């Protein structure tokens, strides 16, 4: 499988979706809605041969009232608690009709996933139903007007946790629940990290069996943030490690983006729902975030580095990496080059590794540099 991640963020070729637009304008999402962007992008990846199953949630409204539908693919509205079961039925019927080139996608909110739909979800996961279940997590019941769900994070204001200090309980760890089902694929994703997002959807599309994608989905009216901050919040959530990007494939855990951590303050500051959260409360949230990150790192076999040094440590290079070692480094960068590209990259490495004018580059940077160059060449 071709891997599409770009290791060097140069702000130009940020996106790699050649697929056709499917989702239609004129839908009913609030201005700046994160779900609308996710759905639009996911549909591009899934393509026309997709059936969406949508329980009660904002997205059910967004798609449009009779006689409209924005989705551009068949979409079945189902009962709030029944997305996974209904989607199972769709798949069963397709199987009976011997149709196997259609993606069956359940697209549900956090309420429909963490709470009321968890039972059906667990069952479908246990049966390893051949579907992709996407939970767009806006951390509350938004459709009904911002009520607490088990996905609401501690401290958040909602209409049903109106008093200080907001919701007292911590957010349910749904990832662990889902992964415990030993499903073939689990991933978290954020539209802010779009290439990672697209990679994961592509990967999910290609896998058979039960696939679960957890999206953090900023909601301007619900989180009380500026409509234009939707993407920024995704960046901050990932970077502050409140919402780590990782995936679990065949029981192998992998952090797909290991950010240099920033404090959670800016993330909280941008959101009115955390307005009252100050001092000790922030510390408590940070402690929880750090703890979860450490747990995650342990599962991914990574040193956790709660506070890694600001700059990558520099060292003098002496011996050129062997081809195998280089391959290993490349795979750490999620790079999957063709043979030609590999060869070219290694030649470049050999010529640049001991070159003095690159001695101020860290190993990491030099390798990124090489990857960037190879990506610019036409090696076919």
């Amino acid at each position: 499988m071709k891997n599409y991640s770009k290791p060097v963020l140069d702000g130009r070729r940020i996106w790699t979706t050649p697929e056709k637009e499917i989702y239609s304008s004129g839908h009913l999402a609030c201005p700046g809605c994160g779900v609308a962007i996710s759905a639009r992008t996911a549909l591009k990846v899934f393509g026309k041969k997709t059936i969406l199953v949508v329980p009660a949630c904002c997205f059910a409204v967004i798609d449009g009232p009779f006689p409209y539908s924005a989705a551009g693919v068949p979409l079945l509205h189902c009962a709030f608690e029944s997305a996974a079961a209904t989607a199972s039925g769709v798949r069963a019927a397709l199987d009976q009709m011997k149709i196997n080139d259609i993606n069956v996608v359940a697209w549900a909110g956090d309420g429909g996933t963490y709470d009321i739909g968890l039972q059906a979800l667990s069952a479908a996961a246990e049966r390893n139903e051949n579907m992709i279940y996407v939970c767009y997590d806006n951390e509350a019941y938004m459709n009904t007007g911002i009520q607490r769900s088990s996905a609401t994070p501690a401290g958040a204001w909602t209409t049903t946790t109106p008093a200080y200090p907001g919701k007292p309980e911590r957010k349910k760890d749904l990832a662990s629940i889902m992964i415990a089902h030993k499903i073939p694929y689990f991933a978290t994703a954020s539209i802010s990290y779009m290439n990672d997002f697209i990679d994961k959807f592509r990967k999910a599309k290609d896998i058979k069996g039960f696939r679960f994608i957890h999206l953090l989905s900023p909601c301007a009216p619900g989180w009380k943030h500026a409509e234009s901050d939707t993407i920024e919040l995704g960046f901050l959530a990932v970077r502050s490690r409140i919402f780590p990007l990782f995936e679990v494939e065949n029981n192998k855990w992998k952090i797909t983006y290991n950010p240099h951590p920033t404090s959670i303050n800016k993330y909280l500051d941008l959101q009115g729902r955390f307005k009252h959260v100050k001092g000790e409360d922030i510390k408590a949230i940070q402690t929880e975030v750090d703890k979860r990150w450490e747990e995650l790192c342990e599962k991914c076999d990574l040193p956790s580095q709660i506070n890694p040094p600001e700059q990558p440590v520099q060292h003098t290079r002496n011996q050129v990496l062997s081809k195998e070692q280089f391959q290993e480094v490349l795979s750490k960068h999620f790079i999957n080059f063709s043979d030609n590209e590999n060869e070219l990259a290694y030649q470049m490495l050999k010529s640049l590794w001991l070159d003095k004018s690159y001695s101020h580059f860290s190993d990491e940077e030099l390798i990124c540099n090489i990857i960037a160059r190879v990506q610019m060449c036409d090696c076919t």
Partner: protein
Amino acid sequence: MKNLKTPLQQSGINVPISGQSLKTTAENKTGIWRNVEPFYLDRISPCAQVCLSGHDIPVIIELVYENKFEEALKILRLANPLPASTGRVCPAPCESSCLRKSLGGSVSIKQIERFLGDFAIENRIFCLSKGPHRGRIAIIGAGPAGISAAYFLAIKGYFVTVFEEKKKAGGLLRYGIPSFRLPKRILDRELEIVFKQLPVEFIYEKRITKDYEKLLRQFDSVIITCGKSISQIPDIPGAGEKMSGLTFLEQINNGDSQPLSGSVAVIGGGSTAFDCARSALRLGCDSTIYYRRSKKEMPAFEHDITEGLEEGIQIVENVIPIQIDKNGDYKITFAKTTSKDRKSAVKIIPNSEFAVTTDHILFATGEKQEHLFNKVQKETGGIDVSQTYRTSDPKLFAAGDVTVMAPGTVAGAILQGRLTATSVHNYLNKTTEPHPAKIPHLRGAKDDGTTIEKINLNYFQELRRSAQKATDIKSRLKNFDEISSTLNENSVAWEVKRCFSCGTCVYCSNCMNYCPDNAISFDSSKKRFSVNLDYCKGCLICVKECPRHCMGSKYAAA
């Protein structure tokens, strides 16, 4: 069956029994929700804003990014015919204001320019005239300003005759700046590819003085670009014309230099001083620069000072020569001074005199314009010109260091040459075009600049600036060979990758792809994005997520 029609059915509306939706939401014009509205607007990048010859830097860089070197060169040549030269000698204020500075160091803009210049030379990409041929223009002085004016007029189709008192063209590029900074070979080849196919005639060893008025009659228009050719030697006992630094440099550049030995005292603090001192080092001397103000007040370019110090030049600050005695070697008497800034006069500290003996003295205390063109030139100082580089005589124009607007840099002279060419063109065609644009670009209007706060750093990671390869110090001093080499293609690729393209849309499509309402589309024939106001809800995600500040927003009642 009995009539089972429902009321809606009877009125012709058929709602499917299962209530299925059959249409897309496209009918639903969500634009009416909006109270703010995004729009596209490229901005002048901070680098381009300060670029001395007005390059549209991010556009050039973008083309290099796409490996379209020839196209990049084309854009570059819209502003500058001599990138191989400026790419070597320009003080590059663009790099100082480059927004990438804080994220791995500024982009090597100058090196990219140099790379493109060398690319043109190596691939012999000639400049061509667009015609139709008309009008004859005379240019006096083949320095950067004259060359630039000649080039821009010639490509527009004018026949240009350039009168130059020296044996070759280039002005201070050739006779001032030493070869270790700008090899003559590069200059020669660059001039060749620029002029070989253009209707420009160079008449060398022809010094124009009073006869410029004759030219005014023979030609449709005349441009004076004589630069500043006279060394200003301070009026102190013992100082004389033969101690001119400029003359010394000219000799070296002509290849007439003899090996020197002993010590050289260079008086001054500008480029000339450093070039003299560094040349003297190469001829085998110890060089010391004596400057009347402090080091940080030196008018020399930063690269002069850093490279000079690297090579072993001594600098003595805050001293002023008051007397020179020759007795075999020289004895210079200095007084110590205090200085505040570059503008106010220095104060001599009473009774602070001291003497220095040295084998050679070079004065690099500034140059001034020759008084040749009495009608348009005051007794002292440069030629008075308007904003459009016109003198009081409507047929006569002037640009470069010879004018009161003396740019003092090669790139600045090139800009003036270009703007003058446009003015001449306007004059001859009786057009009243406004003052010609500083930055020629192809993409419509641009707004004011942008700042680092407006760059969305989420899309850029820290990438360090590539180091330029330079000859080690010891071998440098053995000859006048160029000390630095042009970045190779790989490093240039890396450098262009580092550019934010501040304010210039590079079609990353982020705005389009992040629009929740799918309200942005790209017209590939026009190479333009546009917002579909039928659907835009005004969330302004597009504006915020443009990595490089190419969008803006305004209040808009729907």
